[in-house]
């Protein structure tokens, strides 16, 4: 309706063009990194089905590749897709070229450089040990800088717009940019030890809360809000239909942005996080159901009247299925947040199942629709092969279904086995490994389902490549539109309509909306001494244990082993005394984990002899037949790094861990003494004396310390 909005316009008639080359660049990056992310995904899926797929190489073990997979899928694949879609639609919705071509290129190459840095550092074991925030501090800073470049480019374009009001897609983009910046910076705060090592400034419960506030909202504001924005542009475009309800857009946007941020603690139900925070996380997750579905309704109802086209138009087909998966996942999310359901689902494969219904079902399928749309528009041609696109569609759907169903079955099966207690008050399956062996067939199904999805993606890559080849980029077209002046102001506009003409105010209000929940949940952990009751028996780690803990973090142990005994009968029977908040105050970062592929380790200290750990790390199957854990033989080859120890202790002291100056100065000597004691014990079983300065000894010292200080106290209740 350009005609009506141009009626009686008095502003200067200006000419402009779009920077579509930057969109093409992001499209290329999306296709390449998408393939990489999925290849990594099936690699680690097969590693769970058979440990041999770890190949005995340290940079290829599950614990190091899993963070690379998640980072690649979220930030490389979905990130580049988001930037492609935003840069394409933002210019058109505002009738303005992107603010600055050079900034766009810095944004592009900066982001790709960060991805390459991640692909190098994560397999090397350089990690902050916090899920989806693993990248070490120099890269974390680089992400913040590139994000600011993106923000300047984005808001600069808004300033130069020739459309008075901003469309709902842009509301979601604004919320994304503002919130991701806040999340990334707050969760990223660390003190560096070296260029490649840092410690989170938060510890224990506090670190867990900040981490899952971040982790949950990475899903919310990196995988949901920007893609809802893209949905609001590309679905009505592809369907040539008006958006179903403007009113629904307004109410679901503001409620979604306000509520989502509170839901993080549902990742910490039954943990030692104070219960009021857990309850807030649960109830806001329930309240989030309707706002989430607002987006699905607006998307699917926009397709009303063109359902016949959904059957034939491959782009609409992808979008319709994507919205359906979005609806399913955003129903399952609140369901899993209910405490009693969470008790069953948490720590099991149900959660990766849930996550992949979102990232594959919602993100990948929507991105597929958007990529076909963008490539045909930007190369001015038709899709090369609708047949290939259809095969891709069905392979992705079948693959995801295999993935999802196998993971839900595995998760619930294992959870029920964990919980089973007989009439004598004993666990029916006391050996954890029994519950693993039971679900290994499901790991195979998942891996093959993932392979289907990966192949479907390769088919799309080929199809898009051939589409580009048959089309041509052409020259930049020039358009004209009136500059904004008083004549573009609507008479009798509603309050919200007025707000849509004030993007910066809109940004500030979004910021306030997300800060309310954040502040109410997080600030008490920073201020109150009552938040965590101190336990006198809990002391800082010894210098050698600290080194061992860093090895534990480096190898990504937390990705398969939790450190949190929940207050549940079966957990206390299986693992020992339930965890308490005061146990974790020196844990920078916390290592509670989110998945139990292996058993919980919160009380593993002292449970086995040193020699057990020695055998176990060199070949887990020596002590646990049928174990699926990788071998860690390099731990008896690599020397303990004593050079950075003093600095590590100093940084820990700065973070509030009460090491005395003497303890810091004598750190190396004390660590070597402890290493000798452990080695002497191992030597009794015939281990050669050379292990004394090897990493495995440090790791054993840490494992033997976990949960001991509080766990060995006499039972009080």
């Amino acid at each position, binding site marked *: *309706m*350009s005609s*009506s*909005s141009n009626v009686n316009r008095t502003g200067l008639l200006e*000419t402009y063009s779009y920077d579509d080359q930057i969109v093409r660049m992001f499209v290329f990056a999306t296709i390449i990194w998408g393939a990489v992310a999925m290849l990594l995904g099936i690699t680690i899926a097969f590693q769970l089905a058979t440990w041999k797929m770890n190949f005995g190489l340290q940079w290829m073990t599950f614990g190091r590749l899993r963070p690379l997979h998640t980072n690649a899928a979220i930030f490389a694949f979905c990130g580049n897709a988001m930037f492609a879609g935003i840069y394409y639609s933002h210019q*058109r*919705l505002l009738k303005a070229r992107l603010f600055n071509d050079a900034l766009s290129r810095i944004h592009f190459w900066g982001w790709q450089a960060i991805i390459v840095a991640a692909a190098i550092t994560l397999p090397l074991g350089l990690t902050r040990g916090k899920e989806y925030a693993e990248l070490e501090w120099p890269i974390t800073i680089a992400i913040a800088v590139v994000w600011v470049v993106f923000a300047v480019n984005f808001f600069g374009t808004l300033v130069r717009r020739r*459309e008075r*009001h901003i*469309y709902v*897609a842009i509301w979601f983009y604004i919320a994304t940019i503002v919130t991701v910046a806040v999340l990334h910076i707050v969760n990223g705060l660390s003190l560096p030890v070296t260029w490649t090592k840092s410690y989170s400034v938060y510890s224990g419960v506090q670190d867990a809360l900040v981490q899952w506030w971040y982790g949950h909202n990475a899903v919310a504001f990196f995988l949901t809000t920007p893609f809802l924005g893209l949905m609001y*542009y590309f679905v*009505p*475009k592809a*369907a*040539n*239909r*008006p*958006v*179903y*309800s*403007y*009113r*629904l*857009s307004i109410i679901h946007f503001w*409620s979604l942005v306000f509520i989502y941020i509170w839901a993080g603690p549902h990742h910490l139900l*039954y943990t030692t996080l104070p*219960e009021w925070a*857990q*309850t807030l996380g649960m*109830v806001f997750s*329930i*309240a*989030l159901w*309707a*706002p989430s*579905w*607002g987006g699905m309704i607006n998307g699917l*109802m926009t397709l009303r*009247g063109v359902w016949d086209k959904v059957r034939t138009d491959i782009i609409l087909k992808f979008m319709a299925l994507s919205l359906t998966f979005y609806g399913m996942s955003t129903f399952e999310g609140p369901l899993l947040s209910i405490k009693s359901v969470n008790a069953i689902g948490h720590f099991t494969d149900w959660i990766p199942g849930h996550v992949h219904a979102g990232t594959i079902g919602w993100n990948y399928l929507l991105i597929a629709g958007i990529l076909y749309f963008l490539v045909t528009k930007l190369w001015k041609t038709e899709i090369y092969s609708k047949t290939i696109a259809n095969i891709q569609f069905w392979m992705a759907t079948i693959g995801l279904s295999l993935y999802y169903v196998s993971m839900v079955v595995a998760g619930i099966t294992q959870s029920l086995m964990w919980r089973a207690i007989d009439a*004598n*008050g*004993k*666990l029916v399956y006391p050996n954890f490994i029994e519950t693993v062996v039971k679900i290994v067939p499901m790991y195979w199904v998942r891996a093959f389902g993932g392979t289907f999805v990966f192949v479907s993606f390769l088919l799309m890559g080929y199809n898009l490549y051939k589409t580009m080849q048959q089309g041509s980029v052409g020259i930049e077209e*020039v*358009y*004209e539109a009136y500059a904004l002046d008083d004549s573009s102001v609507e008479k009798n506009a509603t309050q919200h309509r007025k707000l849509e003409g004030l993007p910066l105010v809109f940004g500030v209000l979004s910021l306030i909306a997300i800060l309310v929940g954040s502040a109410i949940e997080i600030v008490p952990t920073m201020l109150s001494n009552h938040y965590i009751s101190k336990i006198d028996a809990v002391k800082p780690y010894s210098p050698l244990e600290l080194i061992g803990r860093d090895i534990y973090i480096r190898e990504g142990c937390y990705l398969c082993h939790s450190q949190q005994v929940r*207050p549940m009968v079966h957990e*206390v029977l299986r693992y020992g005394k*339930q965890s308490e908040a005061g146990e974790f105050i020196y844990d920078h970062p916390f290592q509670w984990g989110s998945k139990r592929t292996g058993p919980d380790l919160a009380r593993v200290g*002292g*449970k*086995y*002899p040193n020699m*057990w750990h020695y*055998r176990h790390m060199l070949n887990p199957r*020596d002590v*646990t*037949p049928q174990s699926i854990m990788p071998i860690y033989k390099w731990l008896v080859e690599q020397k303990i790094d004593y050079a950075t120890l003093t600095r590590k202790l100093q940084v820990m002291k700065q973070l509030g861990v009460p090491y005395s100056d003497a303890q810091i100065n004598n750190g190396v000597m004390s660590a070597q003494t402890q290493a000798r004691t452990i080695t002497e014990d191992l030597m009794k*079983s015939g281990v050669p004396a050379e292990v004394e300065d090897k990493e495995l000894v440090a790791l054993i010292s840490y494992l033997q310390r976990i949960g001991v200080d509080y766990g060995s106290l006499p039972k009080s209740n």
Partner: protein
Amino acid sequence: MSDNNNDNKTKLHLEEGEDKILLDHSYDGIQELDNPLPSWWKFTFYGGFAFAFFYFILFQIMGAPTLREEFKKEYAVIEELQEKFNKANGVFDEVKYLAILKDDGVKKGQVVFETNCIPCHKEKGIGDIGPNLTDEYWINSKGTPATNFPVVFNGVPEKGMPTWSASLSNEEIYQVVSYVQTLHNTHQPGGKAPQGNKVE
């Protein structure tokens, strides 16, 4: 030069009656309808908030039982069951032992040993992570069935010997004890150095 919006306008698909609720907004040809909020959605929306409000009040302010309180109650029941079981089964019963011994106890015990004990005590009990069972030195017992039984049943958690009554049936414990008895003083080659006290 062209107005980039024109191509879309002509193709916009409208259902019957939608022209009346079509808003005047247009962004790159995208328009919006002014449909009311679906009533079932509004119900879910307000229902979610109402649930959130009352649930929070009930559990955090009115003092409904916390997760930890509920756990304590459940755990007390389980502890009672276990105590009963341990009282009934945790003491060595000579009669039962002899009966099991008669019923192929050693042979069955070897199977139990090979599935559960080998990771630490190795085949034939020569010892590795755990002590050598083929010499005359014992750490926690006197090497007799009556003194070995509680070591298996209760474990020696501080030394890394698990509480086997948690995962083995009582029969299996008697069986494995009878098998271990046959290893005693066999001095298998390659055994671990002696630990504990010599028992004559």
